[in-house]
């Protein structure tokens, strides 16, 4: 018996070839095991269980047609083939669309049904698939997905690789790297599931389950790969549907279902690999030699059983040195790049090149599906099978973001032929409707026992039009300096409508109003003592005095991170004058930590408030919450959420008579846009624009690194605006700064022209207030 085994990479993220060979050597001592590899850098070629080696050139050099014929000849000659490489399995499925009795890999139809992330085949198994979104959606939607899931998300490649992307800029960076590496934009974002990793590994031949095991990871590498585990029988409630799934897929070969079990016991499917896992010899140690069962099923040759009493259900890995085979001496190390560190051993077999070739051959379609008979597409194994030289085969059709009609209506009021760019555009009706809605929500939540009030944080955007809108909409003004207090007074707020907070609130000296403020919140114990002294001297007067509590992960507010800190806070609160109401204030940007996280933080803060109230013996009468709401998060279902939040506050803190909500950028961000013009671009031979220069810059869009902006192109002839989808063009700002890239990839219209206007929406909050003068002489 001759068995070809591929996938011999044995680095820190190993392939299963060596484990398969070890298992088969025990079961079929006299079988000829042939190791198949595509690089002599893969150390598994030196594993002594291989009787022969079939070393191929890396995938980028291989003549696939000739190689396919060689494999066919080997299979026709009676040899078996077990693959340990996902992409090789996809390619083999296309070469043998009807299968081959000696090819122990799954058919194309089965591969289609296990493609990530939906893994259609999982239905019936007692598990769920974590929520995901393909990255061909607009950046606007992708950002929303990340916020919704608290930025606990993984960006995953179509075949391998998953990277945690906890911020927008990390997402953009990783997306670019993975897309380039795997020659596809068909990536996806998936939510993280906290829990313990488990696997079901099985072997099947032509739809019949030959064997299966359950493995729990007991030690993991830094990359999350198995280092130790325990192997037990698959529970019956899993085996029955697994058997059905195998039958329906007509599965042949090994496979692994990678899962996470959460604290509640729910299993979540991460992926289904169409091959044995690298830890497969651990299963053989436990007495379940799945590669042997697979070969036994395919050939009818009985495997040698492990000696009774020789099995152990727990396994672990060690690092071993083995002699190098004399006929395959170690290759030289590549020269390090000047100033570079280390020598990458990643993908020595040319796996990335194989992915690119498979895309070009349309073995793998842009939808991530695997296709069978490639001969029908005139494959020459080497070229562009789609007959279209313009568009990369793996380029997904990206969608443009939806833009609120009020934006377009407001933009119609501007004369863009005359407008100076870059220039800020105030979206009148958009702003008015947002403030009105906030006001309506607050009114709706106010009742006889609690008053709900909005406050406008002046720092978000001190534009007088917005501050005035806030005044007219019944807001309070929230200031972080005495200059901001003066701004509020200038626009028409009375001192009794101003909240003062922040670490530098007394700056600059001499501008504190004589009349009482609405509230003042202390940012530190020292600040609180100053407030107390101010009240005692009569310099400071306010209806409410309170503290800002420091939220986890923030540097603002009074910390409660130790019992000692809590005790200090409690003692300090007791110093506050009894004739003013006591309040607590906390802010945290929900756009940074995510929506669910923010609401947990809110509940957590109520918990701290109750502790402070109980220990200090001071009733909390005012709660001031908010900060950093992304507009969509604040406006969607916000009325219900805030009603529930007010009810929670009243339940935890019965003395609360006023809740101040600070919607922050939820109101300001959509209220302004930035217009800029295309200065320069050049088309490539195939007509594409890779880079374009605009007269705007990151000086006007400093939030570019933290959030996407919906970008509109104005058709100079019709005056109509169209939202831009993601594409290949980078928009470079006018500044002579390397990082001045205002959009990493947009799809400009084919007839775009110099001087065309682009409008960056969603720029009315910190983009506006933190913009700076640069490069203007």
């Amino acid at each position: 018996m001759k068995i070809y085994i591929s996938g011999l990479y044995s680095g820190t993220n190993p392939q299963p070839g060596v484990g398969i060979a070890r298992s088969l050597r025990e079961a079929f001592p006299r079988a000829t095991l042939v190791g198949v590899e595509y690089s002599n850098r893969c150390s598994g070629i030196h594993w002594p269980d291989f009787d022969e080696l079939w070393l191929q050139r890396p995938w980028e050099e291989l003549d696939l047609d000739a190689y396919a014929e060689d494999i066919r000849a080997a299979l026709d000659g009676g040899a078996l083939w077990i693959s340990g490489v996902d992409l090789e399995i996809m390619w083999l499925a296309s070469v043998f669309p009807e299968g081959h009795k000696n090819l122990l890999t799954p058919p194309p139809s089965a591969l289609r049904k296990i493609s990530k992330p939906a893994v259609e085949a999982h239905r019936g198994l007692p598990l769920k698939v974590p929520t995901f979104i393909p990255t061909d959606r607009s950046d606007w939607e992708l950002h929303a997905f990340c916020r919704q899931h608290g930025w606990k998300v993984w960006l995953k490649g179509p075949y391998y690789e998953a990277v945690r992307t906890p911020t927008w800029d990390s997402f953009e960076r990783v997306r670019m790297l993975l897309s380039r590496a795997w020659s596809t934009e068909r990536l996806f974002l998936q939510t993280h599931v906290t829990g313990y990793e488990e696997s079901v590994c099985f072997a099947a031949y032509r739809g019949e389950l030959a064997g299966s095991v359950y493995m729990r990871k007991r030690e993991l590498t830094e990359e999350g790969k198995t280092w130790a585990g325990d192997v037990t029988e698959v529970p019956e409630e899993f085996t029955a549907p697994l058997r059905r799934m195998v039958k329906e897929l007509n599965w042949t070969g090994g496979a692994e279902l990678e899962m996470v079990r959460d604290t509640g016991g729910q299993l979540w499917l991460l992926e289904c690999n169409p091959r044995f896992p690298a830890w497969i010899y651990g299963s053989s140690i436990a007495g379940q030699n799945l590669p042997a069962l697979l070969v036994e099923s395919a050939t009818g040759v009985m495997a040698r059983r492990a000696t009774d009493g020789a099995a152990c259900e727990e396994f672990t890995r060690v690092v071993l040195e083995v002699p190098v085979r004399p006929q395959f001496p170690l290759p030289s190390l590549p020269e390090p790049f000047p100033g570079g560190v280390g020598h990458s051993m990643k993908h020595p077999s040319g796996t990335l090149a194989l992915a690119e070739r498979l895309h070009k051959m349309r073995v793998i379609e842009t939808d991530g599906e695997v296709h069978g008979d490639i001969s029908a597409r005139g494959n020459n194994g080497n070229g562009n099978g789609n007959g279209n030289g313009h568009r990369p085969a793996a380029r997904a059709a990206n969608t443009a973001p939806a833009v609120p009609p009020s934006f377009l209506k407001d933009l119609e009021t501007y004369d863009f032929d005359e407008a100076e760019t870059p220039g800020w555009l105030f979206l009148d009706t958009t702003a008015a409707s947002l403030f009105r809605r906030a006001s309506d929500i607050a009114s709706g939540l106010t009742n006889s026992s609690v008053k709900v009030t909005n406050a406008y944080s002046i720092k978000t955007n001190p534009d007088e039009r917005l501050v005035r809108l806030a005044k007219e909409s019944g807001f309070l003004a929230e200031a972080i300096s005495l200059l901001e207090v003066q701004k509020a007074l200038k626009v028409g707020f009375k001192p009794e409508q101003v909240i003062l907070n922040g670490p530098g609130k007394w700056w600059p000296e001499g501008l504190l109003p004589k009349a009482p403020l609405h509230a003042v919140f202390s940012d530190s114990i020292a600040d609180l003592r100053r407030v107390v002294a101010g009240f005692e001297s009569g310099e400071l007067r306010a209806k409410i005095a309170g503290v800002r509590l420091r939220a986890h992960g923030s540097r603002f507010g009074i910390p409660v991170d130790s019992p000692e800190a809590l005790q200090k806070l409690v003692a300090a609160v007791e110093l506050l004058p009894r004739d003013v109401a006591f309040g607590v204030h906390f802010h945290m940007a929900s756009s940074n930590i995510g929506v669910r996280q923010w609401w947990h933080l809110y509940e957590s803060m109520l918990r701290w408030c109750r502790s402070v109230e109980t220990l200090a013996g001071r009733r909390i009468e005012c709660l001031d919450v908010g900060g950093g709401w992304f507009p969509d998060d604040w406006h969607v279902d916000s009325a219900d959420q805030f009603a529930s939040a007010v009810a929670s506050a009243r339940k935890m803190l019965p003395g609360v008579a006023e809740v101040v909500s600070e919607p922050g950028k939820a109101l300001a961000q959509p209220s302004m846009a930035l217009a800029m013009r295309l200065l320069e671009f050049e088309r490539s031979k195939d007509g594409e624009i890779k880079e374009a220069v605009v007269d705007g810059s990151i000086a006007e869009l400093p939030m570019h690194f933290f959030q996407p902006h919906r970008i509109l192109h104005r058709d100079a002839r019709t005056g109509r605006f169209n939202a831009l989808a993601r594409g290949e063009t980078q928009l470079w700002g006018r500044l002579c700064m390397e990082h001045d890239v205002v959009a990493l990839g947009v799809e400009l219209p084919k007839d775009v022209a110099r001087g065309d206007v682009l409008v960056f929406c969603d720029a009315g909050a910190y983009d506006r207030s933190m913009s700076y003068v640069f490069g203007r002489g």
Partner: protein
Amino acid sequence: MSLAEGNEIMNELMVVGGADLAGARAAIERWESCPASTITHHGRLCCRVAREWVFAADYAQLNGEHPLTGPRWIRQRYTWGPSRWPISWCEAVERKTLDCGALAAITHEVFAARGVTSYPAQFIQQYSEVSARHWRKKWEGDEVPTNWISDDLIYHEGCAVVTGGDEIKVWDSSAGWWVNPKQFGGYGGLLALRVCGSPPDVSSFKWGEHRVAPNRWQQIETAPVRR
């Protein structure tokens, strides 16, 4: 006692699997009258602040996750080591080092504050005489009793939390992990378990394949290492 998150003593030669049935029975007898640890309360602001802080900090640390999530932050904050007893809330939270009894008692209260039904749990575990010698020296150096050590066996504490019906999971507060109900004996093996409490309508708890009667030491049957 387990040293999962620090102070691991790895450079020792040890022989495991030496505890026979008689040894386990003797250990049970030895620690039969040993009550699960509790933390005292001065009845004043000092202990009220400490308790409030622990519960509020736990709620913040839970970060919206499932209430059965093990409160590993406690072990991250406090090193495992000798404690002087009795210990009050205000003393415990200020310590840098807490023993298994203090860690387990705090964790038990934390689970209860989350609304999870929790019972103090007592363990008898096997380590090695070399480990025991090191621990004995460390505890004697701090002038605290070493009666939790007996040859290669130790007395240890954790919590048993009800996950639904009569099923429990056992949390080792000193290690920051859930104890595997499938035990093989050997180094770190759990030989006996006692769940302290009077659960209503439950004559015994289900822990993995085991049935554990409350308030009684129960030897833990080991799974066969070899099949």
